């Protein structure tokens, strides 16, 4: 059954992990700090395969909980104990690079055949460049789609074959299916005060026709007001303010939300646990604007300054992005950053992976800007102010704009 796919991947992983966990004889060891915590992560399988296939080079991987990554990297930098290779969240490249924490890899990448620029999705490539220099290599990416509970749609008298195409239609569907007194909601997004909130709302801003430079425009206000209305009218739960994307998906899996916005990382566990008919649909556009924009997430491979085995680390990066390794991403709920790899057709619900792949052409990076943490924080605050009703959408965005405008002046972001 579905559990078995889950399991066989993992047992293959753990078997080879057992094989490859101990670095062999006098091999060079590349220390890798990664975020591959859960057993189905394709990254773990790739690490094991690498160790099994090479005798001169071994990866010594350390799994770091995502929430601790920043703290551990800081500690590493502070004490000079940095790994040779690290996976970092793509919007953080510019801020780390600008503080001199990352090695410049532009020359090595240019000389590499596997890491040819045209293999990668342009948005993903852009996140690795800061101030004209390249500091990282894209690893795996993700983007957003609405997961749709078709049973709930049908029960509400709607045709699941005709998903909402515009914001107005989406809101109408959500209104029809919401019953907050019973804990049932029509739509789910994450408005949490962390990078995840920015990740989810930014596409709406972009689809409204506004940008970070025009936060005070009526378009931007409309993008935020959309979320405010959803919560205030009960189409979306009040708890979106404190829930991560995966927690919103938890509610969707339990049958409490009809349409929930999230990414491909949910697929392994959805396939294992879902008990109703479901599909995915792209983010609806704003009526009259027709702009397709969606989010670009994922991690990149970076080499910290002070790493001892830079060449070896680079070989690991090349290995990870070779087509054979990249193709493993899909089964683990990830999308490769390279365009020349297609999802295997024998995967369950292969069309969903294809749908995610298809969205990547519209996926826009966050930044890159060395000031992204502060920009993101201002946006998060605005979202929370408006959704809690403490300020109107316009006021909240005006406050955010006051913080963001000088940051954009100092480090202009192309296309934002």
């Amino acid at each position, binding site marked *: 059954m579905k559990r078995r796919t889950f399991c066989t991947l993992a047992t293959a992983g753990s078997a080879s992990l057992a094989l490859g966990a101990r670095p062999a004889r006098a091999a060079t060891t590349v220390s890798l700090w990664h975020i591959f915590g859960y057993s189905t992560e394709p990254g773990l399988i790739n690490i094991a395969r690498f160790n099994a296939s090479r005798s001169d080079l071994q990866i010594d991987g350390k799994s770091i909980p995502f929430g601790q990554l*920043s*703290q551990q990297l*800081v500690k590493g*930098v*502070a*004490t*000079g104990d940095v790994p040779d290779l690290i996976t970092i969240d793509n919007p953080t490249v510019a*801020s*780390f690079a600008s*503080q*001199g*924490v990352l090695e410049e890899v532009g020359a090595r990448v240019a000389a590499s055949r596997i890491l040819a620029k045209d293999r990668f999705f342009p948005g993903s490539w852009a996140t690795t460049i800061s101030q004209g220099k390249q500091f990282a290599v894209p690893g795996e990416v993700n983007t957003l789609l609405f997961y749709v509970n078709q049973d709930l749609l049908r029960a509400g008298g709607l045709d699941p074959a005709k998903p909402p195409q515009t914001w107005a239609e989406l809101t109408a569907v959500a209104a029809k299916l919401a019953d*907050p007194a019973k*804990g049932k*909601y029509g739509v789910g997004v994450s408005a*949490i*005060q*962390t990078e995840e909130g920015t990740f989810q709302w930014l596409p709406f801003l972009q689809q409204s026709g506004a940008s970070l430079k025009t936060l005070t425009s009526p378009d931007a206000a409309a993008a935020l007001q959309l979320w405010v209305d959803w919560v205030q009218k009960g189409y979306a*739960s*009040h*708890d*979106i*303010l*404190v829930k991560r994307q995966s927690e919103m998906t938890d*509610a969707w899996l*339990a049958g*409490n939300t009809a349409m929930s916005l999230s990414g491909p990382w949910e697929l392994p566990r959805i396939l294992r646990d879902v008990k109703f008919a479901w599909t995915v649909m792209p983010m609806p556009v704003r009526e009259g604007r027709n702009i397709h924009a969606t989010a670009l997430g994922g991690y990149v491979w970076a080499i910290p300054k002070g790493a001892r085995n830079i060449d070896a680390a680079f070989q690991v990066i090349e290995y990870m992005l070779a087509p054979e390794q990249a193709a493993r991403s899909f089964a683990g709920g990830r999308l490769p950053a390279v365009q020349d790899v297609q999802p295997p057709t024998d995967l369950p619900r292969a069309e969903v992976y294809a749908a995610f792949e298809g969205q990547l052409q519209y996926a826009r990076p966050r930044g890159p800007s060395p000031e992204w*943490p*502060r920009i993101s*924080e201002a946006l998060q*605050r605005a979202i*929370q*102010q408006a959704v*809690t009703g*403490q300020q109107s959408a316009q006021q909240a965005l005006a406050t955010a704009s006051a913080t963001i405008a000088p940051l954009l002046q100092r480090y202009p972001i192309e296309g934002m």
Partner: protein
Amino acid sequence: MSRDRFLDSPTIWALLIGAAALFLLLLVGYPIAYNLVMSVQEVTLGNLPSFSRPWVGLENYRQLLADPLFLLVAKNTLIFTIANVAVQFVLGLGLALYFQLSFPASSFLRGLVLVGWMLPPLVIGAVWKWLLGSDSGFVNYALQGLGLISGKIYWLSDPSLSLLAVTIANIWFGAPFNMILLAAGLAGIPADIYEAAALDGAGPVRRFVWITLPLLRPTIYALLSLSTVYTMRAFDLIYTMTHGGPLDSSNIFPVWSYRMSFELFDFGGGAAIATAMFALVLVVALAYVRSVNAERPM
């Protein structure tokens, strides 16, 4: 010096204290000094590895005080600390007194209450986050079932309630600590004192006020001081439940310090908050030492 004389001399005092003092000095004193130094420098990821960073004097502290969040976080910390210490103490005392009574399985049940302490904060935070979830949380479900509320309470997502929510969870977490320390203190009071008082005609309330409380005083002072310090450093639970939000409504100093250092990479600011916390707590520690010095030997 003969062995006996040596064992009685001040040297042995110095050695005994010295071992622990040295240990703490090295492993804790150095980090405190490290933080203190960072708080008067301009620290970025770039200059983090070296110790010679630009000196900015009290600039980090000045920026802290000028930060619009400062008053809110300070207020939250004050409310959070007072509520926790007070309620945990009363609850702990009540539980300790109750389980002190003689009935079957009393000590077993008392020990069971400690189970909450064994769980990692990640789990406690997650469980409470679910229990207090506005939609599928059990607390709302129970309150609605009992007819106590009509709508949902947005425990975690309403800025005016989030501090209450994390306070409740932290009280749950901390009360057993109070209980067990008070139980130990109660156990140290000999029964014959009570019997003598009872013979003199003192009722249970008078016995409690005039015998139990005074004899418990050293334990109470230690407990209240420790409780204050531990509450002020409460970080894991709040970070897991609300991340300090929404909109910093449940943000307290330790959470703010962490976010400043590791999310905004403003290490000077984070260190300044930590040093300020240390200074605040010195007040509590000084009060404790005064109470210790006022102890009259039994």
